[in-house]
């Protein structure tokens, strides 16, 4: 049995990268608790289209919490109040009819605004291009189990590899630092033998690219870990620092 919910939304609207932004208030009368937060925005957009208004732009793709496309700040928390979920997996059952929800885009100089709730996260692509890859031999695909890797390292590498690059870490960081993203990528490859040929170059170049993109410095607030939809630990950041020091001193 689903109850109809009335949800008030304060949504950040911005016509373009350089246009001034402002909050607009909307009310969705026919929301229900089975909806995801993005479906609520879909319903709002249908409403806006019927009224002849511009729909709210937001990024989304899989809506299964695994692609890293979506992401908005809901009432001051990146991806909303439910831990370890992307905003597409936040469901309206966590709200009551009559609630007012404030929705803002990721805010960081390195993530320039495109429109409404959509920001340009290509800075992450450039950090990846600076070193987030491994060398592979050409030819047939090698046997997946040919290289022995300890269970502990394999598990840790998998934990770090679960980063979906959504950018919530940057959005939530009081300093708008990209340390958790960069560290997760570096740590993932540092834990695996396949990552060792470029190991030193990788940490130097990715950290340098992170700086060039204009992200802030880390202050160890650990807010990134709290909002990460994959729950990636800031132990990745500690490992990135050890990797960096090893690369710098050898």
């Amino acid at each position, binding site marked *: 049995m689903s109850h109809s919910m009335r949800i008030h939304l304060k949504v950040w609207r911005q016509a373009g990268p350089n246009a001034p932004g402002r909050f607009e208030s909307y009310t969705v009368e026919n929301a229900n608790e089975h909806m995801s937060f993005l479906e609520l925005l879909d319903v709002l957009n249908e409403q806006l289209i019927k009224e002849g208004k511009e729909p709210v732009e937001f990024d989304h793709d899989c809506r299964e919490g695994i692609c890293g496309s979506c992401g908005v700040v809901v009432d001051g928390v990146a991806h909303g*109040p439910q831990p370890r979920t992307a905003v597409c997996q936040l469901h309206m059952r966590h709200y009551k009819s009559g609630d007012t929800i404030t929705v803002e885009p990721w805010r960081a100089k390195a993530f320039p605004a495109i429109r409404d709730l959509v920001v340009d996260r290509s800075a992450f692509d450039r950090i990846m291009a600076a070193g987030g890859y491994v060398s592979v031999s050409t030819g047939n695909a090698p046997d997946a189990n040919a290289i022995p890797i300890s269970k502990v390292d394999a598990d840790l590498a998998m934990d770090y590899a679960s980063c979906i690059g959504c950018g919530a870490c940057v959005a939530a960081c009081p*300093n708008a630092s990209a340390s958790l993203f960069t560290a997760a990528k570096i740590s993932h490859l540092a834990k695996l033998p396949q990552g060792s040929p470029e190991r030193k170059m990788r940490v130097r170049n990715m950290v340098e690219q*992170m700086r060039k993109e204009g992200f*802030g410095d880390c202050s*160890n607030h650990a*807010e990134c870990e709290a909002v990460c939809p994959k729950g990636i630990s800031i132990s990745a950041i500690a490992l990135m620092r050890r990797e960096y020091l090893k690369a710098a001193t050898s």
Partner: protein
Amino acid sequence: MLSRLYGSPVLKKVTTGLTGIFLTLFVLVHMTGNLAYFADDTGEAYNAYSHFLTHELGALFYLIEIGLLAIFLLHATIGIQIWLGKRAARPEAYAVYRTAGGASRQSLSSRSMIVTGVLLAVWTVFHLVTFKYGTYYETTLADGTVVRDIARLVDEVFGNPMYAFGYPAMMLLLAVHLRHGVWSALQSLGLVRPTASASTYLVGGLLGLAIGVGFLLLPIAIYFQWA
């Protein structure tokens, strides 16, 4: 060297962490030394300790002083730079912002590092003017050595309620700074083990509290004439 330091977000954090650990060790030793005042000997042990530091360490004393000054300035400069960088990295603030809780270590302590840091830096100058460069009284130890009577100056200063209560307030700020600082320094150096994160944070906070309380005992005890 400085351009390499500022060119690397990791080296900046490592330097802040290393200098922070040195400063924490310094205040720990300073606080422990202060406790000599509580010896039941009308300031003899306190004056003797002060004399030992300033007259018996020779060149080492000046080396430590210069080193401390350099560490202090480096720590403060990078801290201010990180704060300026953070403002540049998010030109437009959130209308609504709150911590997600859980794994977050965000607290009043972590958010106010720049405020507590700057206040402590300014206060340190006043502190040096008050004591190091304050009135030079002399006294004679039991063994006949003529030394500076720093205990007398301390008594005089903390007889004044402005100092007797102002100092403890600053020391509480130091405890607040160290609550985030000790843990943060270890994390910046990559030394926090994932499994020991909570206990490291707790021990860091308790160390900060112990240092703060250890310091504020002296002015309070003198003002209320407990010691």
